[in-house]
């Protein structure tokens, strides 16, 4: 049975570099990603962590950096810490940041290899539109969408 994937496309008035930084710079994601930061040196093979910014530094998602073609393409694996050792529970996220005409980018997030029927699949289906809407608001207005 093929593993489900979720694709979300948004257009943002920002440069590819700004979108890349918003996703990868340690304290930038914290501005809009629902109280989480993304921590990594982003070198291929390095690990990355999705950490809570509530003072606990608790890690909610872990993975490995698979591809880094700054600022156009970033590929990471994605799993909950308890599922990281089980290949069936490790999914893959591709961020594609393409310049669009003069002043916008098209950001395509493809989250694939998800476990059919899983909580993770349900969670990311709700989560990506929330996070990427907040990212767009933050880059275009300086404030995340107030949710």
């Amino acid at each position, binding site marked *: 049975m093929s593993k489900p994937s979720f694709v*979300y*496309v*948004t*257009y*943002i*008035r920002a440069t590819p570099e700004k979108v890349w930084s918003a996703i990868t710079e340690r304290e930038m994601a914290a501005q809009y990603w629902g109280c989480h930061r993304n921590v990594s040196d982003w070198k291929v093979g390095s690990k990355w962590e999705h950490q809570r910014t509530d003072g606990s530094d608790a890690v909610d998602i872990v993975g490995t950096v698979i591809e880094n073609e700054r600022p156009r393409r970033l590929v990471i694996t994605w799993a909950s810490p308890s599922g990281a050792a089980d290949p069936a529970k490790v999914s893959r996220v591709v961020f594609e940041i393409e310049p*669009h*005409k*003069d*002043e*916008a980018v098209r950001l395509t997030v493809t989250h694939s290899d998800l476990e059919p029927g899983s909580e993770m699949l349900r969670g990311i289906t709700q989560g990506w*539109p*929330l996070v990427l*809407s*907040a990212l*767009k*608001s933050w880059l*275009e*207005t300086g*404030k995340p*969408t*107030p*949710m």
Partner: protein
Amino acid sequence: MTDLARFKPKTVYVTYIASTPEKVWDALTRPEFTTQYFAGFAVDVEPKQGGAFFLRYPDGRVHISGRVIEWAPPRRFSCTWLIEGMPDFQGLPESLVTYEIEQAGGAVKLTMTEAHFWAVPDEVLAGGRSGWPAILSSLKSVLETGKALDIKMEPPAELVEAVKQAVATKPWLK
């Protein structure tokens, strides 16, 4: 018209917008807004269930026509969509587009659902799947920044061929 129960959701797009349900409703239903973000088309809708619905080119010609199925401001607007303005697409049957507008904390959650009553091939669904993110991203920018995005609407390469095939074989009649 095709029995509503036969329409199944095929494409769903969700976006969260820093605005109010009333403003999002206006942006979806008033031409002074749609001309900014909806590829230049002006919406022309009779504001009631059963009302006539059009998306018009700047010169007034009809691009899309339909009927209002649900009119419940500011929460739910759905209407049928029949493509009239593009010759290759004219044989396709109607689809159903539904906008749901919900308060989500300090923002509005807008869910667009495109539904069809026949087994639409992915190559034909690709049209909406490439168009809706562009249109609704620009709508969000209009409401949050006052400025639409300059987006080139590029139909996917296989779309026209796939539509021609569908119109030739009319699988919805089988």
